[in-house]
């Protein structure tokens, strides 16, 4: 979190640089079936973020040492394409990508009915083609849609969204410019039907009160995103 509090990012009317109010989301579109050779797939744009997710499986699980006798395992790889960022992202091992892959896997394994497919593997590839801010939320949300598109049974889809703080004001869904100067970032993974959580991270500085506000923004935003997800799976693009 940059935290340069002297750059004015919110005007006297409480509007943000891109005209949104504190609790408003960036524009989101969702398409399924975008990777024809995959069992399920999703393309999601969110602001200028673009993520493409492919799901393969359930399939044979190798390497064998990750196989589980009583359930399927998810093999989740989150990756940023070399041309997704202003400075080219070098391909190859990357601690951040490893960590995002892990938290995404942990979130999705909480909802997929893994017990239905013992000894098998479901592969989920999340490619960030263009990155703005909040790519891990975009990737996790798009992965939920791709799993549904592949017909993999889940207790619920995961909706992921982040709120943050800028100029000491709590706002929902930071864009890239806000993220550069932001003072905190609270991404969450929410089950829209129960309100329960499967993913949670946070960086920065939030008082207990600010924290509660950011939490509430996320809970509310999850409901609107969930409607778009359901619509996309019904066949329409939003």
């Amino acid at each position, binding site marked *: 979190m940059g935290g340069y509090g002297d750059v004015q990012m919110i005007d006297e009317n409480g509007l943000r640089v891109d005209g949104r109010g504190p609790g408003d989301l960036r524009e989101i579109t969702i398409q399924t079936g975008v*990777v024809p*050779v*995959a069992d399920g797939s999703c393309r999601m744009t969110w602001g200028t973020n673009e993520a493409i997710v492919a799901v393969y499986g359930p399939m044979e699980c190798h390497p064998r040492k990750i196989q589980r006798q009583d359930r399927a395992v998810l093999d989740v790889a989150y990756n940023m394409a070399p*041309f997704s960022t202003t400075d*080219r992202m070098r*391909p190859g091992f990357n601690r951040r990508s490893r960590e995002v892959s892990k938290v995404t896997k942990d979130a999705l394994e909480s909802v997929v009915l893994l017990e239905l497919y013992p000894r098998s593997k479901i592969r989920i590839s999340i*490619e960030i*083609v263009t990155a703005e801010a909040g790519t891990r939320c975009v990737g996790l949300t798009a992965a939920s849609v791709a799993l549904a598109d592949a017909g993999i049974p889940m207790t619920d889809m995961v909706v992921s969204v982040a709120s943050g703080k800028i100029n000491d004001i709590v706002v929902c869904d930071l864009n890239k410019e806000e993220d550069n100067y932001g003072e905190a970032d609270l991404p969450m993974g929410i089950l829209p039907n129960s309100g329960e959580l499967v993913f949670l991270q946070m960086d920065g500085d939030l008082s207990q009160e600010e924290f509660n506000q950011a939490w509430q923004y996320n809970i509310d935003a999850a409901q609107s995103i969930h409607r778009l997800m359901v619509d996309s799976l019904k066949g329409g693009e939003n």
Partner: protein
Amino acid sequence: MALPLVPKLLRAHLAELAENDARIDGRQRWEGRNLEAEISVLPRAEGSARVRMGDTIVFAGVKFQIMKPYSDRPNQGGLMCSAEIRPVAGRHWESGPPSPESIELGRVVDRGIRESGCIDVDALCIIPGEKVWQVILDLFAISDDGNLFDAFALAGIAALRSAVVPAERFEVGEDYPLNLSKTPIMCSYHKVGTRFVYDACGREELGGDERIHITLGDDDHVHSLQKGLKGIFTTKEFTEIMGHAQERSKELRKIVDSL
């Protein structure tokens, strides 16, 4: 690239189709799949293209870096071409270090572009002996239903043609377009059954034998060849392929030039 157990049956089926001059997806021997191409699709890249050939979908993105020139070529910029086939593109692609297949893909596309001389490397000099531009062409597969070679080559040349050198962002002058003097085009042929076909789909690659990649320039000049995989071919077969490549490359060049 793990090999499934089905290929034997698939091979037999493809061989039978070949005997009847037919292909598994109904195309004729020299017929390419439906082609879509668009440029400037990646907002963070300085040049980009998306190509779809049937169910094969790829991106190409161009980025620039400033580097020190090689001591024997102090006035010349460089080109680096990298193909990454990540697991998103198909169930047989796995993560990990670059596979021999993806290394070959990157190198063959790279050679076709480089050897055609379409990039004016002298125009990439910023300060002789100190700073030159390195053009980085990243080829990225979204969906692999066969013939990534031609899809990558087409997306690559289209992305380069659309690229703008980001001199302002690097504070070394004004932005200017990366003008390409030529449009090299790759055409690829796979031996399926007893004969070569153009633009093989995924099942034809899986049940086929060797492949031959030809990159031709504006004037039918040959800039790059590559024979891949195990297999034998005759001079006569090659001559036939070369003949088709001369025709087809002209059609594809028109499409690229019109983007």
